[in-house]
């Protein structure tokens, strides 16, 4: 006797229990603490904060633990939590020129005011597995120096003073919020940057790479990459002034791109911009290249059909929570639709066979 599949509820409960067991792994091995993840998996935490659009290292670390290290799943957990948070207001724009930099490099000038600061980078590490890390070991303290007192001005600001780079007047309007209003195309730059900064790092990286290989090339130089902490300020109408409520770590990349100009207009360099929460320089550089490629229209360039130039393509597909959900939904039952396809194909085959036999 055929019995239709029953017991979905029991199966779900059992799956959840098994998942929890797998998450914990071998109980003989000490359990990871959220603080350990926050401190020692900081770049994973940063990625989850950036793509989850929520600056909270503890919650990001918790999400990574809960997601068994699946970062897209962790981003999803953070997003689902974020969406339930009440909005009390908006901060003032952060001032990255006033950033306390841990790292600041420019590829366009050998030296510059504020200096080149290498910071804690993988860049010149030789990628050799460090087997010493397999054992617990003390890390010798890194040498320190007094923080430089001089300001660290933006490279693009230096270029701007000479009129060598396109001017970027500060925007007046409050930008739309991608998470509170449905995306309408074409989207303005503020909205595109929002989408890119929470977009999937792998997707944005590949798009940026494609522009370097000629699919929407923009001749990008890293004018400046800076990582550090900035103050977040909120204006309190009751007080009539802004109050600092905390600090966030950001990575900012400004690219200096191919110039444009004409007989009447002197040539100027153009800009690409990337800003990402946490230390996420691969993402920030990628974002600035894709931002620049998406600006073809306003800069009077040709649309060459490159994916990175196509804002509908980029914005519709950069979100990994959307992508992963829709991709994975095809494992849900579709047997009703499949059944109707089955009947259709059988009928069409029968008709085609009948026609062929009639012809023979």
């Amino acid at each position, binding site marked *: 006797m055929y019995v239709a599949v029953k017991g979905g509820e029991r199966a779900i409960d059992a799956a959840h229990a098994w998942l929890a067991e797998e998450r914990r792994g071998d109980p003989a091995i000490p359990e990871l603490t959220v603080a350990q993840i926050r401190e020692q998996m900081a770049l994973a935490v940063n990625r989850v904060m950036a793509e989850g659009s929520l600056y909270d290292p503890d919650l990001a670390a918790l999400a990574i633990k809960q997601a068994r290290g699946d970062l897209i799943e962790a981003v999803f957990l953070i997003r689902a939590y974020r969406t*339930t948070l*009440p909005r009390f207001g908006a901060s003032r724009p952060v001032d990255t020129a006033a950033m306390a930099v841990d790292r600041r490099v420019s590829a366009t000038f050998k030296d510059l005011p504020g200096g080149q600061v290498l910071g804690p980078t993988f860049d010149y590490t030789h990628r050799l597995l460090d087997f010493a890390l397999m054992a617990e070991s003390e890390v010798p303290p890194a040498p320190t120096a007094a923080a430089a007192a001089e300001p660290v001005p933006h490279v693009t600001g230096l270029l701007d003073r000479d009129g060598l780079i396109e001017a970027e007047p500060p925007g007046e309007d409050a930008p739309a919020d991608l998470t509170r209003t*449905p*995306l309408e195309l074409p989207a303005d730059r503020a909205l595109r940057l929002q989408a890119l900064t929470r977009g999937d790092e792998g997707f944005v990286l590949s798009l940026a790479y494609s522009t370097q290989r000629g699919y929407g090339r923009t001749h990008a130089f890293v004018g400046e990459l800076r990582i550090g902490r900035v103050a977040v300020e909120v204006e309190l*109408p009751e007080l009539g002034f802004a109050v600092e409520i905390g600090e966030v770590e950001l990575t900012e990349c400004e690219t200096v791109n191919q110039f444009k100009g004409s007989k009447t207009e002197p040539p100027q360099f153009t800009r690409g911009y990337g800003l990402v929460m946490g230390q996420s320089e691969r993402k920030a550089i990628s974002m600035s290249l894709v931002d620049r490629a998406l600006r073809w229209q306003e800069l009077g360039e040709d649309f060459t059909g490159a994916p990175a130039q196509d804002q509908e393509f980029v914005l519709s597909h950069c979100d990994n929570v959307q992508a992963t959900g829709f991709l994975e939904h095809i494992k849900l039952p579709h047997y009703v639709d499949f059944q109707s396809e089955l009947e259709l194909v059988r009928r069409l085959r029968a008709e085609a066979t009948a026609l062929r036999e009639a012809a023979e």
Partner: protein
Amino acid sequence: MSAPRTPSRAMPPQDRAARPGNRPDRKGTAVSDYNFAYLDEQTKRMIRRALLKALAVPGYQVPFASREMPMPYGWGTGGVQVTAACLTPGDRLKVIDQGADDTTNAVSIRRFFQRTAGVAVTERTADATVIQTRHRIPEQPLTEAQILVYQVPIPEPLRFLEPRETETRKMHELEEYGLMHVKLYEDIARHGEIATSYAYPVKVEGRYVMDPSPIPKFDNPKLADNPAIQLFGAGRESRIYAVPPYSQVVSLDFEDHPFVASKADHDCDLCGASESYLDEVITDDRGSRMFVCSDTDFCNARQAAGHRGRLSAQEVA
């Protein structure tokens, strides 16, 4: 369109009860800590406004600021948001996937609302006041006391003919549906009939071409002249649309190739029904198969009333 600036002010009383986002204690979040039906009130109002406009312009896809739900996009987040915006504490909710109440995703969504809204649930179509569905319309005719909420993956009926939203929006605006007719006609030229068996496009009230969600075309006739309110939610694509009761809904076709609502040419092997949509179940590796109602409630009710199908006799044996 820019969003109105969030005013920096105290939360109005209409939202005071809706503060789900307090940081959970480290033991974890109890779902009961969330607002009634999970969503905060401001989100519900936004969805509710979209639903009213959707009813006022039948078949037109209203953009809405879809939220990230605690379940994946593509798994019913649009339907869940619509249901959450419609539920009242007195409702009796039924959730089906593929016509069945006990498929895992249906179980999961039903549980979500039991926990977050505390509503009563039922598997009986006749007892439900709100029915959330994926891929089917129940066999039992719906009533004026019911709302049917569809989960929609791709709300745009023209999407696979034209991938750009900017273009398809223009086509709807200009009522320019030639592309769809060309596609259907090419089917006929190649196969002798329209080769679309589910998500079969319809025209609502003579104006908008609409995707009825991936229901089998067998269900299309039930969309028309239905006493219930039919609401469609597409979460990932941020669209809501609706078919008001007793609306005219016509499946696209040609005079010489009229629309036919087809199903497997069998009776249900469990309840003997000849008029219900059937699932084909492979029962061994030698090609044996049986056909059973996809609508589990419909089939169970018929069996309880004494109806028997081809394979029911084995029950006694």
